[in-house]
């Protein structure tokens, strides 16, 4: 119990709780909007009526009911899970690399997951569970590659070069995936819609295999929050406080791989969410990683679900891929962070 209270304690509790509640309220409103608005024929008024009918046994508008329960609700749930996972993964990765630019999508973690899934489909894998674990293994591989390269050559302290290494690795994995898709028509068909990064057409069943690994990741995150906050003060301080920096780093990498791999398996590679969300959380809550993590929990879903709503509304009746929208939001933030004075220049 004492561990739990420690983990959940903040510097200034009242302001953070107020902020958290406000963001959660915003998230609920956005979730409701995501049920009401869509690219199809069912407008907000019909959807609202059908939502009220959902509680009652009898429904007058079966089409609206179908659209909400079978199409929009699964998207919403997956958006919530994916957003939270990507946001928290970004915050953790940024804390452990001490690099405000470290983003799973840019560092090659998502590309690793995507490449692993492509390989798995090429070799005949089909079940959803396998795909999740494969994506998580790929994410782990991508993560380890970039970080190993960084530590080996001592560019770990150089945020901008680390990102460059990640971008190059992503490019390499991406072209390897393209090569496989070119070679194997079946894989290409299977993966064409998955690889853009989108919430469309996903079923709730796709989400079920994620929960065990995401549960493990959540538990580990709660346990790691305090050591990470100590690590932010410096390696020696963390050791002095009784933590083991190496173990903490390794576990964080595993958690990031679980979260990003799971999110990628569910929605395809989505870049920049892991950059934008922790950035916003830090701007709201200050540098403490525990506060950042708490705020990422509502902020990640807010970003992903609202981007998903926009992706449905811009060009009805067709949809934009979600990954495109997050790139449009995220790239300006990236440039803003790079221009910031606090980054070391090399």
């Amino acid at each position: 119990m004492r561990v739990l209270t420690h983990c959940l304690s903040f510097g200034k509790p009242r302001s953070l709780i107020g902020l958290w509640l406000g963001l959660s309220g915003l998230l609920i409103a956005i979730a409701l909007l995501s049920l009401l608005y869509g690219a199809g024929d069912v407008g907000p008024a019909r959807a609202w009526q059908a939502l009220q009918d959902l509680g009652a046994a009898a429904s007058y508008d079966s089409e609206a009911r179908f659209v909400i329960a079978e199409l929009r609700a699964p998207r919403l749930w997956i958006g919530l899970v994916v957003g939270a996972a990507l946001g928290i993964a970004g915050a953790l990765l940024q804390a452990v690399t001490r690099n405000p630019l470290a983003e799973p999508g840019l560092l090659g973690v998502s590309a690793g997951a995507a490449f692993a899934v492509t390989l798995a489909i090429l070799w005949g894998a089909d079940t959803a569970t396998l795909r999740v674990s494969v994506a998580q293994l790929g994410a782990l591989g991508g993560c380890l590659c970039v970080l190993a390269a960084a530590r080996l050559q001592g560019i770990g302290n150089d945020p901008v070069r680390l990102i460059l290494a990640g971008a190059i690795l992503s490019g390499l994995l991406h072209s390897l995936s393209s090569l496989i898709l070119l070679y194997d028509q079946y894989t290409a068909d299977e993966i064409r819609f998955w690889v853009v990064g989108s919430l469309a057409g996903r079923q709730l069943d796709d989400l079920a295999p994620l929960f065990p690994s995401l549960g493990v990741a959540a538990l580990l995150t709660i346990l790691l929050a305090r050591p990470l906050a100590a690590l932010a003060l410096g390696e020696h301080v963390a050791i002095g406080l009784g933590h083991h920096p190496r173990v903490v780093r390794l576990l964080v990498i595993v958690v990031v791989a679980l979260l990003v791999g799971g999110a990628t398996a569910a929605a395809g590679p989505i870049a920049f969410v892991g950059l934008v969300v922790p950035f916003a959380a830090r701007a709201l809550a200050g540098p403490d990683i525990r506060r950042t993590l708490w705020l990422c929990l509502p902020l990640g879903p807010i970003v992903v679900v609202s981007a998903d709503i926009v992706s449905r509304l811009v060009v009805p009746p067709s949809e934009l891929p979600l990954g495109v929208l997050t790139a449009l939001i995220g790239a300006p933030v990236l440039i803003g962070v790079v221009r910031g004075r606090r980054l070391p220049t090399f």
Partner: protein
Amino acid sequence: MTSPVDTPNAVRQDKYYLALPLGQRAPLRVIVDKRNLLANLLLSGLLILLAGVALNTGSAASLSLPATLRALLGDGSPLDTFVIQELRLPRIVAGVVTGGAFALAGCLMQTVARNRLATPGIVGLDNGATAFAVASVVGTGISLAPPAMALTGAAVAAALTFGLTGRIGVRGYRFLVAGIGVGAVFGAITQLMLTRVSIDAANAAYPWTVGSLNARPDHAVLSLSLALLPALLAGIWLTRSLTVLRLSDAVAISLGIAAGRCRMAALSVAVILTGLAVAVAGPVGMVALIGPEFARQLSAKNTVPVVGATLAGAVVMVAADLLGRVLLAPIEIPVGIVTALIGSPLLLWILLNPNARTAP
């Protein structure tokens, strides 16, 4: 009293001086290093050899060497002549000019930015040009020819990246990351346009998304070829200033070189070349990294191998296209994927190798 430049015989033996006979202050006076000359001759030979092999190889018909030559000169069988002159030769020409253009642009940009990783592809130029070229193909209301559109796109991307990171020639990696951001935005815009149009229009725009030399439009090849020669001359003319600029602005200014104007000129040439090359072949940006690197290994130290980089880029492009055609035949690998597979490890090596990291 004369300076060493005016009396070539007084300086080291391994340099030659070429000057147009226009008197003491000839506008075009070029220092030619013996080793660079040898390197360029070697690269030219390699290019001719590769072009010959590429002409002779393919899936359509296996031609003997004499038959290839006869078809090239126009008195072979009609089928052979068609295959050689209509299919393979334009493709090789497109490969040579795009490879040369990409690599020359890369060489100039790397020198200006004092960073070996600063190629037009990384700084977002390729993606900008691609986005605009795709916009013209899928017909989003703007009706310029793809080359002009791609040129505009490259210029916009360059203005954005350099405008966002401050003045031109900022040392360091910061503007590379800004370039990645700009490139990501343009990549997203390209995706966005491709999802909005019909499948036919999307297929027409496909080469611009991966980089391919298959059946490229003639007018784009022509406009690139027309631009390449003046660009190369401009590059040669800029070589001396650029060589000094690699040291520092202070040295350059004290030697009477207008650093700002020189950078702007080199950058403009790079933007024009990248835009036109993307209009032909799509974003094959890695050639801009591999070509100059290849040339630098062969050339004399401490020079800016402008001509060598152009030749090496053409060699790399033709070789990569040939590889893509034969490697998984009958499936054809787009040249953009081949160069990315070769170039990415090279890029990582440059980034991680402490000795290779410094300015070009």
